[in-house]
């Protein structure tokens, strides 16, 4: 059991100072901009909650938010089951384990803009391996820069390629912590594969799966660089996810007020959903 000790605060101080500097100052800047209007020359006028109302009502924001939720839901629905399946079929012992782990983790260590460029090169019609294969071998008309559907599929497959391994590694960590005795007992009882999964493996993976879903939710909701490099948000606005739209408004059009209001709404949504996952997770920890 942890002991009560208020002096523990001193241990936390360096972290607190660093993160407060990095988080509070920029956050206050955003809050400041979000309630003001500017015409340049550092002149600001009080705007109240006008920007928030404008953003929440705008079709552009709602469309981007809708795309964002669709994207996050789709990648979670693909990555979580796929990750569990791969983790279940991985070897538990032997020389292949480190090889598998290193190869699987490799996509996660590639800089995000390189991931985008890589998939761009991979999917180019005529030149890229996938683009050539789909167009010239299978005869499917596929061009990411022209067809919204192709662009969406490419962005989704890219994210599955990039991040499914996170789910695999987390589930695998849960699986190897199950003692052999559990499996032996199940064998003696004549349990089917399904009941071994349902009553032994799944409960053991519960905590790590929650972490996986939490991390995947946060990161996919904040995704920017990969789809931006791959599609630039296009064709049209079809793959303009929230972050891409936000950067367009803030750094492209320099509309500081609306961008700041949008940032806060965006952050609030991420925070709310993450908080739900986090409480679920810490409840498990306490048990």
């Amino acid at each position: 059991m942890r002991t009560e000790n208020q002096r523990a605060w001193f241990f936390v101080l360096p972290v607190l100072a660093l993160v407060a500097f990095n988080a509070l100052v920029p956050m206050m800047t955003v809050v400041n901009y979000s309630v003001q209007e500017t015409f340049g020359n550092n002149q600001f006028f009080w705007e109240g909650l006008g920007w928030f109302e404008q953003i929440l009502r705008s079709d552009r924001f709602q469309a981007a938010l809708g795309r964002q939720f669709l994207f996050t839901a789709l990648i979670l629905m693909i990555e979580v089951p796929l990750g569990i399946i791969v983790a279940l079929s991985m070897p538990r012992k032997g020389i292949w384990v480190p090889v598998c782990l290193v190869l699987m983790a490799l996509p996660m260590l590639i800089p995000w803009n390189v991931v985008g460029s890589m998939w761009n090169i991979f999917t180019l019609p005529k030149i890229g391996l996938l683009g050539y294969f789909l167009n010239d071998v299978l005869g499917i008309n596929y061009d990411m820069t022209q067809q919204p559907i192709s662009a969406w599929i490419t962005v989704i497959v890219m994210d599955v390629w990039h991040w499914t391994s996170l789910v695999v590694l987390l589930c695998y960590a849960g699986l190897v912590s199950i003692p052999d005795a559990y499996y032996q007992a199940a064998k003696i009882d004549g349990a089917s594969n399904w009941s071994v999964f349902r009553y032994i493996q799944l409960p053991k993976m519960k905590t790590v799966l929650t972490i996986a879903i939490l991390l995947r939710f946060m990161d996919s909701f904040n995704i920017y660089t990969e789809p931006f490099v791959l599609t630039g948000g296009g064709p049209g606005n079809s793959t303009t996810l929230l972050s891409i739209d936000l950067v367009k408004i803030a750094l492209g059009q320099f509309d500081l007020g609306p961008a700041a209001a949008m940032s806060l709404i965006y952050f609030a949504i991420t925070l709310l959903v993450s908080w739900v996952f986090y409480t679920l997770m810490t409840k498990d920890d306490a048990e």
Partner: protein
Amino acid sequence: MRKRSLIPILYIAFLMLPIYWLVAMSFKTTNEILSGFSLFPQTFTLDNYITIFTDPTWYWGYINSIIYVTINTVLSVCVALPAAYAFSRYRFLGDKQLFFWLLTNRMAPAAVFALPFFQLYSSIHLFDTYLAVALAHTLFNVPLAVWILEGFMRGIPKELDETAYVDGYSFPRFFVKIFLPNIKAGVGVAAFFCFMFSWVEMLLAKTLTAVEAKPIAAVMTRTASSAGYELGLLAAAGTLTIIPGAIVIWFVRNYIARGFAMGRV
């Protein structure tokens, strides 16, 4: 058993395909790339790599990235160690709230912070320095390092601390001589994650630099837009960015699964 190992093999093949294509492209000449499809490089060339290793703007991109990533990793792990110890050993006023607040910074979209960070670091004259990027990346790396280290430290029984005090160890000596060696794996994993997220993050790194500390990503985007579209060169630059990650991952391969679970298995 044979059928079961098919799934990981297929999955890894799927992961390797785009990487293979990137590497294959990097050994092709621009002419070959544009003239049509070829599965293997027909006229094998090292020109793309030679360009990168002889042009200072290119290779300085890599050096810059590695410098700020290293500063960030050292800084993040050093401040996270005492904090993680406090969270794993003591209860104090507001500990749960503080822990969650730290994690919220891991959740913040980098796009939200891009502009305010630019203004903040410009105003304290750190814009376009290694320190600016390293500090900015602590925003999401410190919470992560605290989280991972706390998970690993919780696995160390409290009796270890108590025995050390009975034996007359002072706190700093106990921490360095006894506690740290016990969570070596955790420190390695935390450092690995800090390295990883700082290495792959590009939006903030690009926003906070102009010339002096420009990361490799910024050099790559400039090439993509200005010098026509030199795919071979871009592929070679991309291939080189994979190597540092592959090296560090080899060192933590035995802990990586547990590390991704934040020591909570």
